[in-house]
């Protein structure tokens, strides 16, 4: 099915550009703020409080951040499990995005953990508490980060010229690929299950036993969206041609996923009689509609095969999906969450700057690695050893 015409190759080019310097600066600011946080406590730089103990460091950096990092997972699902080999050129760039997303999501957990020096307790008896959704999430994410580094290691090994090791590894790669699909399926759904125990503190728009499926499906669709966005950005940023064929086909998969998702969501809301909440004059209903717009817009924009080949529509759809997915997580964990009247939360500037710094570090890492490692498919026609 696949031609595998383009072997990945380092992109090359300058590492020090205005963009990378700016990104490094933002990451640096975040590092300084984090230093203050570790000396004076979480409250010294964030606005989190006992009514909203999980702020954007958890909800964006971990919940949404890891979902945005699902490109690798979503593509691997297509390529390896559904045997759609034509998407193979997307695997490495998507995997790199995922690797950074997840590694930084994992790291930012440490920033938010109050007693981070005990983190290892999660993985060992007698501490490990298997009834806790958090336990499952933590274990799966940690394992997945490890799996992803192994999946990605061929790129390093190529760079280091250790093809012998690479060969040995590739014999067993299928195991890691299997794990690399299973683990995100488990924890992306469990990120939704985290909300179940909150019970009636969550608005009925989001409190449902379907949460695991809702979170899993949105993680997969946003995974495709991120791949599309990355494609658009590298087309624009690295002056590479836009892979319209591939992306167009990918967006078709995504479109069907979205249709199924929206149907599920609508039926679930109707089943539980929660639609009324969507028409209340409050911020929760507003959040809900922003979220839903993010999922409905791509369905409209990408309805025809011709539309799915238009890069501008693909880009807007991808951004809309990212916004929708972000809003779903913000809605579930913050906007739709109420532990009692009187509580307020809005992220502080330093809190935001840390999140921005983490995103900046992610983008910076991506730029550096695609210039340095064989990740993006080579554009120029090259001889391929077949």
């Amino acid at each position, binding site marked *: 099915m696949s031609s595998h015409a383009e072997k990945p190759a380092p992109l090359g080019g300058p590492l020090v550009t205005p963009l990378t310097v700016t990104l490094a600066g933002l990451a640096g600011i975040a590092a300084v703020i984090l230093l203050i946080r570790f000396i004076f406590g979480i409250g010294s730089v964030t606005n989190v409080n006992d009514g909203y103990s999980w702020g954007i460091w958890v909800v964006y950096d971990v919940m949404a951040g890891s979902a945005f990092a699902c490109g690798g997972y979503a593509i691997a699902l297509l390529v390896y499990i559904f045997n759609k080999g034509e998407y193979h050129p997307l695997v490495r760039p998507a995997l790199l995005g995922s690797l950074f997303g997840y590694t930084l999501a994992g790291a930012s957990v440490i920033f938010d953990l109050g007693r981070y020096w005990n983190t290892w307790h999660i993985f060992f008896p007698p501490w490990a508490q298997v009834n806790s959704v958090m336990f499952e999430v933590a274990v799966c994410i940690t394992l997945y980060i490890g799996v992803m580094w192994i999946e990605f290691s061929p790129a390093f090994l190529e760079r280091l010229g250790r093809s012998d090791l690479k060969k040995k590894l590739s014999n067993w790669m299928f195991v890691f690929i299997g794990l690399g699909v299973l683990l995100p399926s488990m924890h992306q759904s469990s990120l939704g299950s985290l909300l179940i125990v909150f019970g009636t503190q969550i608005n009925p728009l989001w409190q449902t036993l379907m949460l695991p499926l809702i979170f899993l499906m949105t993680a997969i669709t946003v995974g495709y969206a991120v791949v599309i966005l990355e494609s658009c950005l590298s087309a624009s940023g690295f002056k590479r041609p836009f892979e319209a064929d591939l992306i167009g086909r990918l967006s078709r998969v995504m479109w069907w996923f979205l249709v199924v998702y929206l149907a599920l969501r609508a039926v679930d809301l109707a089943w539980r009689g929660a639609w009324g909440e969507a028409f209340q004059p409050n911020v929760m209903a507003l959040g809900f509609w922003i979220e839903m717009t993010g999922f409905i817009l791509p369905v409209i924009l990408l309805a025809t095969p011709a539309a799915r080949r238009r890069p501008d529509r693909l880009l807007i759809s991808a951004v809309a999906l990212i916004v929708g997915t972000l809003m779903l997580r913000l809605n579930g964990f913050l906007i739709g969450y109420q532990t009692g009247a009187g509580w307020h939360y809005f992220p502080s500037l330093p*809190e935001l700057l840390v999140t921005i710094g983490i995103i900046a570090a992610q983008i910076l890492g991506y730029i550096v690695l695609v210039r340095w490692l064989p990740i993006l498919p080579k554009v120029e026609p090259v001889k391929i050893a077949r």
Partner: protein
Amino acid sequence: MEITDLRALREASEVQALEKRLGISRRDFLGLCAALATTMGLPAGAEAAIIKAVAAKQRPSVIWLHFQECTGCTESLLRAEHPTLEKLILDIISLDYHETLFAAAGHQAEAARKTAMKQHKGKYVLVVEGAIPTKDGGIYCKVGGQTAVNMLKECAKDAAAVIAIGSCASWGGMPSTGPNPTGSSSVAEVLGKTVVTIPGCPPNPYNFLATVVHFLTFGKLPEVDQLGRPKFAYSRLIHENCERRPHFDAGRFALEFGDPGHRAGWCLYKLGCKGPETYANCPTIGFGDAGENNWPVGCGHPCIGCTEKGVGFTKPIHALAELKSVTPPVGFPGVHESKGKSFDFTSAAALAAIAGAAAAGTAKLAQNLGKGTPVETSSHKDSGASS
């Protein structure tokens, strides 16, 4: 009331005459009148009226009756430590009948009462100290062969005002405590009408004095509550003005006499203090003119509720008070306190900037992608593979 300037008053002839008559300095006199005005909660300028009224020589005739009592009210009044207060009392008013203070005795005394009543008919003030026994025809208290009930009714008939001083006269007090063998009753009950009551065991002399001076100055008795108590003195719970109240609000209680909390001056509620259900101004004016905190609670004993019918002499001294409905103070945490920052302008601005930049970037990029960017098509790919 035409002279309101205190300086002018100081030089007024009446006040100068008073200086001689009472043997106190004008300064002390003016101070006392101002203090009385304050006790009554009168507005600034009222002291001038009081000074004028007190300095005037027309002293109202006062008939003071004693029934079932211990004379504590009178004693308390006499022991007030203000300079020559008792002199002032006796000089402001014309005390025409008072069994404790009278030099006269027997029929001579009774004759003086009758004379005064006749002379000042409709103008004299009747003060009653002590409860009135009503059982068995009122035979349990007689003065000069006359029962208390008769005597009270006789004297009250032509009185301009009736003041019941002390808890006994006010509602029966100690003598009326169950089983009340003599059928002790209050002045109001016997007369069948509301009278001004100055309850307390003993009452604060200033509350009585201020009431009399109010009558003297304005020709009428002060405003009273439903139990006949002057509002200036009895409108607030002891609990509200108690100096130990902060300890109550903070949950610091003496648990037994002499314990560390008691020594530290903590709240006496748990020792049975009736401050939370007793209306009186004890904590604000104190007793005996000995300075701040000189009142039962200030000395470390729980209030027994002596000014409150149904509390004093009725409830056991160390039984827990029933907390009268007092709106919780403003500082009391509400069920839903507003907590956390709802809006941060700088971060909201930053967020808006990010969202704006992202939207603009997306739009720009979409535009660029829409026209200029080379699009890799199948043909391109094929050509790449074939070459």
